[in-house]
């Protein structure tokens, strides 16, 4: 049933990695709708992945995490690949918004995070801040770009292109509260099937206040290169310490300079050396 999309309500993705088959339909749909060019990466030789990473022109990326066991596993226990369609997490507490100096990164009426291309000046502070390595410069437009959660489609009442194209419903779009309920039920189902290591990532407030694109993972978050809750911290945490260190150094530096002025250079030179006699000078 199509989702009724209304401004003022929080929307997002629930990505169930247990049913991802790595078809990359999401990547293609994303590129088609957002008119992102195909990029020639050459042959990466990295498993079945030839996209490599999320960047300014790849806003969906199916990760193929090689997890082939050394020994033959029993029936149902083999996990040769962890598959995950990665995307911007549209964090509730977004590091990129935290550090954007131009106000280019805004929160939309659908509670998603959007970079205004006409405002961004390409300072790349958001790239340094994003803990998921999502944002990058689009070399054609020379501004920072990432998944918009199909902002334009949402405004037109349509679900995002990737979710629409996903053949296994690994990517589900909807109101955040409904998705969270679905995710809890799905997790219980997967656990009941015997995959005890399955877990939800970003569905609650522990990670950046809750992710608008959250995941059911089949392994621990680190395996997918996702920071655990303790490491999911905002860049602004270092403002206080950094500025205090700066002020402390300035005060010590000031005292040092005043000391040097008062002692007129005795620190570096030691005791004032005698002036050498100039040759030919009158006795």
């Amino acid at each position, binding site marked *: 049933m199509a989702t009724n999309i209304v401004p003022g309500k929080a929307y997002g993705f629930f990505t169930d990695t247990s049913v991802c088959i790595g078809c990359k339909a999401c990547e293609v749909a994303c590129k088609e709708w957002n008119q992102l060019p195909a990029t020639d990466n050459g042959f990466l030789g990295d498993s079945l992945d030839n996209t490599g990473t999320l960047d300014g022109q790849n806003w969906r990326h199916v990760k193929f995490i090689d997890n082939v066991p050394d020994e033959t596993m029993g029936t149902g226990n083999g996990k040769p690949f962890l598959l995950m369609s990665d995307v911007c997490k549209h964090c509730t507490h977004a590091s990129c918004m935290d550090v954007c100096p131009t106000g280019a990164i805004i929160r939309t009426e659908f509670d998603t995070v959007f970079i205004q291309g006409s405002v961004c000046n390409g300072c790349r502070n958001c790239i340094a801040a994003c803990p998921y390595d999502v944002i990058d410069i689009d070399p054609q437009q020379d501004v920072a770009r990432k998944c918009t959660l199909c902002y334009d489609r949402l405004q037109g009442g349509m679900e995002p292109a990737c979710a629409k194209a996903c053949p296994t419903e690994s990517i589900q779009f909807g109101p955040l509260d409904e998705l969270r309920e679905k995710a809890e039920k799905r997790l219980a189902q997967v656990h009941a099937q015997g995959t005890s290591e399955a877990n939800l990532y970003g569905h609650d407030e522990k990670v950046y206040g809750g992710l608008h694109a959250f995941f059911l993972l089949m392994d621990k978050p680190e395996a997918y290169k996702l920071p655990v809750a303790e490491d999911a911290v905002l860049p602004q945490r270092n403002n206080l310490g950094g500025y205090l260190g700066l002020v402390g*150094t300035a005060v010590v530096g000031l005292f040092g*300079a005043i000391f040097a002025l008062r002692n007129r250079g005795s620190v570096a030179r030691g005791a004032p050396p005698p002036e050498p006699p100039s040759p030919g000078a009158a006795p």
Partner: protein
Amino acid sequence: MTLVVATEHFAGPPEWTWYILFYFFLAGLAGGCYFLATLLRYWGTAADEAVARIGFYVALPATLLGAILLTLDLKQPLRFWHMLFNTTPGQFGLNFNSTTPMSVGVWALLVASLFAAVSFIDALARDRRGRAILRGAAGMAWSVVGSIVYLFIAGYTGVLLSVSNQPIWSDTWALGGLFLASGLSGAAALLLLLSRNRSGVEATRGVLESSEALFTVLELVLLVLVLLTLIDDGTLGKALSFPWLLLWLAALAGMLPALGGLTGRRFRATSGGAVAAARLQAWALGPTLVLLGVLALRAWVIFTAQH
């Protein structure tokens, strides 16, 4: 039991490279020069005025050149003013984001340029017409406030790096202080370099040599603090990995002349030292090494985290 829990970093590098490196270098020197110039003029002797003017002469072009480099580093340089004015439709107005040192720093740079420009013109007026523009208590207040802004300029760049999710940068709180201390020692070295052929500034050079040594001790302490904080976060190995270790060693080597008094007249006291000191001054070896160390320190911090 694990004593050190490594912080996981999955953030991608912002690719801040050469423009940013030289901007950080110039910001440190400009900040240090304005600060030292103010101290020399208002808390030194009349003989210190000549070097104070050099400091004020350096601060403005270094700031402007730094601002140009900063602009060139943007992927959309013509939109540099978006840092100052919000161009979001319907939200036009001034831009200020206190949670990022980049925004605070841009405004500080603008204010600092104003202080530097007036002080520059004042130094010109003193040299050309023998009359000061910045006079009395008002002139002193102007320079003191300018110095505070410039101390911020010299060090906020380190805080800017820390306020990220990058490895190394975000694992330490001491980068701001480190860059400030290094900028101050670099500024003292630069003033020594620029005043080396001037007569009548020997006493001032002594003050600069002492300051440089003290600032370098402070820098060394902060460098140790940076390394200690990196141990705590498990990124020390990355910070001191080859080939970036060479930059760290170069930064350390740059501290030696100041610590050893190489830039001073110390060797005059030894047999034949007068000749050695004269050669060193002529080659300007000591201050040049200090400045290269200041540059290497910033290069180490910038590049090691992004590889």
